[in-house]
């Protein structure tokens, strides 16, 4: 029997007035699977991720994370989200952000070690006691990624995670995500950088004007007719 999906979207539609941002989207992501959303700007990738994260309510359809909706604490605890622009508290240092998120998600005795490990991995150790206002955009993005990874999760959502990241940090993130996948985590990410997704993504979904125009195994979709027609390759 196939494992139950961690994420399931059924007939999800989101409109802003007359604009249809996401139209009748069906999607399942299973444990240990990575799905990448690709498409032009405005194709509905970020809206889809925000719908899954519970930051937007669907106009129609249902979003289920770990078997429940995002109003349930169990579902919220299962999902970790990295938005497209870093959202950090201006009065907390990088280290305190990681401690807050880890503590809130019940990371117990190993919290300090986990925080130190992530700071080291993203080359943030020397900036651990800096406030977000003292960091460059790329550094803030690294801090946001570290916050998402410091806690346990079943589903990781990443919206354009490599924008602003230097090549070593991109490589480090790639390694972490591959390891997380092997540990059974499901990953849904949106990116324009297919080089980052290759070797990580199992499936790809091409969105255009809010609709799924093609989906399937990663390699066949990115080399497929829709990706070529839209100039995504």
């Amino acid at each position, binding site marked *: 029997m196939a494992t139950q999906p961690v994420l399931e979207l059924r007939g999800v539609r989101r409109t802003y007035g007359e604009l249809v941002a996401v139209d009748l989207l069906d999607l399942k992501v299973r444990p240990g699977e990575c799905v990448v959303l690709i498409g032009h700007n405005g194709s509905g990738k970020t809206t889809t991720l925000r719908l899954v994260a519970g930051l937007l309510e669907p106009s129609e359809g249902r979003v289920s994370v770990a078997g429940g909706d995002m109003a349930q*604490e169990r579902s*919220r*605890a299962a999902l970790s989200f990295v*938005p497209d622009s870093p*959202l950090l508290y201006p009065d907390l240092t990088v280290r*305190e952000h990681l401690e807050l998120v880890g503590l809130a998600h*019940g990371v117990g005795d190993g919290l300090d070690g986990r925080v130190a490990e992530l700071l080291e991995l993203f080359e943030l150790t020397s900036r651990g006691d800096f*406030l977000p206002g003292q960091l460059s955009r790329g550094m803030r993005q690294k801090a946001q990624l570290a*916050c998402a990874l410091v806690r346990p999760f079943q589903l990781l959502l990443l919206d354009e995670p490599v924008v602003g990241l230097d090549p070593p940090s991109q490589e480090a993130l790639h390694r972490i995500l591959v390891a997380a996948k092997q540990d059974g985590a499901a990953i849904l990410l949106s990116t324009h950088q297919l080089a980052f997704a290759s070797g990580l993504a199992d499936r790809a979904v091409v969105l255009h004007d809010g609709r799924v125009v093609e989906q399937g195994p990663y390699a066949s979709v990115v080399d497929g007719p829709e990706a070529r027609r839209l100039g995504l390759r």
Partner: protein
Amino acid sequence: MNQDAAATLGFLRQRRRAHRSPQQRSDRFTGLYTVGLYTAIGAWAGFQALRQGPARGGSAVWLTGGGLARVATVALVLGLLASLRYATWQGPVVFTAAEVQFLLASPLPRAELVRARLGRGLLVGAAAGAALGLAVFVLLEAELAVPAWPLLAAALAGTAAFGVLAAALGWLVESSAATARGVLLASPLVLAVAVAAWLGGAAAVGADPWSGPWGWAAGPLVAAAGGRDPGWPLQAALLAAVTFVAVVAAWRTAGRVTLEELERRAGTRAGLGASLYMADPRGAALLRRQAVGGLVGVRRLALRHPRRRWLALPWRDGLSLLRAPGRVGWALVLCGSGMLAVALVPGRRLLAAGAVVVAYLGAARLVEPLRGEADQPDASRQLPWRWGDLLLLHTATPILVLTAIGLAATAALALAGLVPVGALGMAAAACLPVAAVLVWSAAIAGQRGRLGLDQFLTASAMGELAGPVYLLRWFATGPLVALASLLGPILALQSAAGRPLPHAQAAAATNAAALLVTALAVQGAWLRSRHPPD
């Protein structure tokens, strides 16, 4: 002025004038004319109304017996402090971003360009001071009926000179980061000077160097109003001398400011204009905080994280307060003032209502992390709690801090003999629930986030009368919730104050407690049911 600079400024003036349509010129004139006309009519009408009102001999005696000296010196000290603090992030010389990019970056002498703007800043300072002096003249003349011309001359000249002095000192602050940092750090000291001036009364006005420019500016006014101040000519001379020195110093240092500083202020000004246009004072406050944040630096205080999950947010809020202890100081001043007012003059309902509003403002200073959460609700997605639970967890630390402030103020009032020993236990017991009501009222207002474009457009569409009422309701929600929750218990306790019978007082205390618990239950349930703002 350097010829190149003068020619460039002249060219800019000419081009701007050429681009200004006759309609724009007409609108500008109409605006100035309307303000001038309404000011004159208001001053005249106010003067007549005050003159024809019932004679208030008590006020006149109080004013000439030291009251005016007190009020004037304190107002001038606070005005100067406000002006200098404003200069730490804006100030009398602010260019637009375009001027910084094109004009100041050009090979023209910066000092000349700055002086043109500084001259305007000094004039604005003089005009603002004179406007204040005019209002003071109207009030005093109506109340005291002393010879008008000497009073008018003293009121206008003193305040106008003080305005120029404030603008010149403002520039000195603006042009030096070290001075600006000093102003921010020394602000509590200046507040202490204001308190000393209030306590000193008539003695605050004198010709001594330690009277300060505020005392020198107030002296001629006090003398013209009929108070006793024989040293006023010397005070006027001292004020003129110190103003002259400050203006010369400002003029000489006009070229000292860096382009980086002017560019930062230009950027802040653009954001400030947008925030004020959108009736968004929080946006303006955040801009100010961001601008001065670089001056005072970060307090490197650490607080070891707890081990229990539910303590995560109280720990985070505690860290925030440690880094901004001024918030606790303001809460102490505001809540302490409210409690003092109620203790000094018990039984006055209007005063009690005012005290609740003032205490609410103190509590609102403590819920800044919650307001920050509402400013960017997406950030809360990193945390596992529902929005309503998150709000309640964010209020734990502010409630504890406000309770501690309440207990400290109660103890101080008891030591001063303002709280009867018999009521001490009840007053102490009330601190926690009252603090919770005040903090939750602030949370109810704060969780809505900043006044957004939607609300602003709604207000704009509602017309000239209903629109401002809509905006006013937005800002008044928190104080009104606090009033609705606390006035009942306060009135219940006040009604029992005059009755000596123990059982009547016990019944009043029970009623007050029941009302408090009901208010807390309603507020808590309402907060828990909230969703993040859009």
